[in-house]
């Protein structure tokens, strides 16, 4: 059985979520590995939320917002970009590959862009294999205890 990753996506209400909606109404095909969480703005996603998703076993996390300059709230996505640098810096302290996280812009009309981002992320994470936190079971030397303690 091939490994099917679980990917969590935080999508902003005004662009990325609308793009996902459009992809749906246009009957575009994309992997079912993604779980979408609608947020009002990508700028409201605290790095803690991303880290927590990883600690609870997400194999990949996407944060999606409007293109720079097109934010419904003027500069929410600029804030998101600044905040997500924190995730880039912290992800290795969890022992995870930085490729498991991506910040992505797409407008409400770009359903194709949404679909390709999701497909690409799914491929990438599938190649990386399950996250060590997947179902709370360590795959290598680290014990379950180690992981629980790193994720506390």
């Amino acid at each position, binding site marked *: 059985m091939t490994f099917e990753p679980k990917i969590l996506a935080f999508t902003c209400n005004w662009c990325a979520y609308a793009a996902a909606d459009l992809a749906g109404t246009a009957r575009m095909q994309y992997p079912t590995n993604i779980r979408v969480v609608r947020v009002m703005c990508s700028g409201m996603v605290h790095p*803690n939320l991303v880290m927590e998703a990883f600690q609870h076993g997400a194999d990949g996390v996407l944060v999606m917002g409007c293109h720079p300059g097109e934010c419904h709230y003027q500069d929410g996505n600029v804030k998101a970009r600044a905040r997500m*640098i924190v995730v880039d810096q912290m992800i*290795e302290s969890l*022992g995870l590959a930085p490729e498991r996280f991506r910040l992505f812009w797409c407008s409400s009309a770009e359903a194709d862009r949404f679909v390709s981002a999701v497909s690409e992320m799914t491929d990438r994470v599938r190649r990386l294999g399950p996250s060590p936190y997947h179902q709370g079971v360590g*795959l290598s030397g680290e014990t379950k205890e180690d992981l629980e*303690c*790193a994720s*506390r």
Partner: protein
Amino acid sequence: MRLTVAAEWLNSCAGCEMSLLNMGEDFIACLRILSFVHMPMLIDHKYFEPMGEKIGFEFPEADLGIISGGIRNEEHLAIAEEMRRKCRVIVAMGTCATHGGIPALINMFSNDELFRRYYRTTVATDAADTPAVVVPPLLDRTYALDEKIRVDVHLPGCPPHPDHISAVLTALMNGEQPRLPTKSVCDTCPARREGKGAVQKMRRYTRNPRHQADKPLTEMKCLLENGLLCMGPVTRAGCAGEKGEAPQCIRARVPCRGCYGPVQKNGNQLLDMLNALASNGIDIRSLPDRQAFLRFSGAHGRLNRPGWKTRDRQQEETAAPESR
């Protein structure tokens, strides 16, 4: 009815016990109800027979167990487990016990590095082998108490303010859940805040902030807004005590160092501080000495050796040559 208390100190410095004695008149009031049955720090009750007839240790049973310090070696671990068996309620006293504290900074280094550094690289003494007898074997890193045993009450602080030690003891004597501060240091800080956005870069505390020492603290500009790295936003309040005028470091007009640990029990001071700075337009890649944000809360796997890797990284490295 008298309550019996057993107190132990593990990987710690005795500062918490000093704070306990600093409770003043409250301590005398407590002693009417509490009776200390075991406390190696203050009472002459040792575990080992001097010439080694007994190998193990025997603790008396107690209603309340107070443990300061984290767990670093096998003796600490055995003592902590014995305390858990003999005490009905365990209080983790001090930041070492709740979050690892200063000693958890060693989690950035391996035991081999530690011994090499300590026994074989100092200039002034001859090199020696790593001790193999008498010293209890070290664990692989410093642990907070609740990583190894169940803890009922967490009382952070370096040391915890006597007011809060008193509050915990009083609450437990009355059979209540202790109430401790839940806000951040900033929430209790009187310094003058003018708003976000003016500062682009943070600097280390090497020069004094601009202030006039004769003016009250309410006229001092917030130290973060002065561009100084102050841990106030991500540190739990409490160092000022119940009636204190201001957090203790702020009162000395230096930035908060974060000694009470994260605001929420499971918070991460490093992550929260980076987020706070990044959200305010400060380039976090320019920050010196980032690990120091975990100066007091490095246990729970927060601080790791730089080469710490899980399978994810190893897998990627072995996979990389093929994909190229």
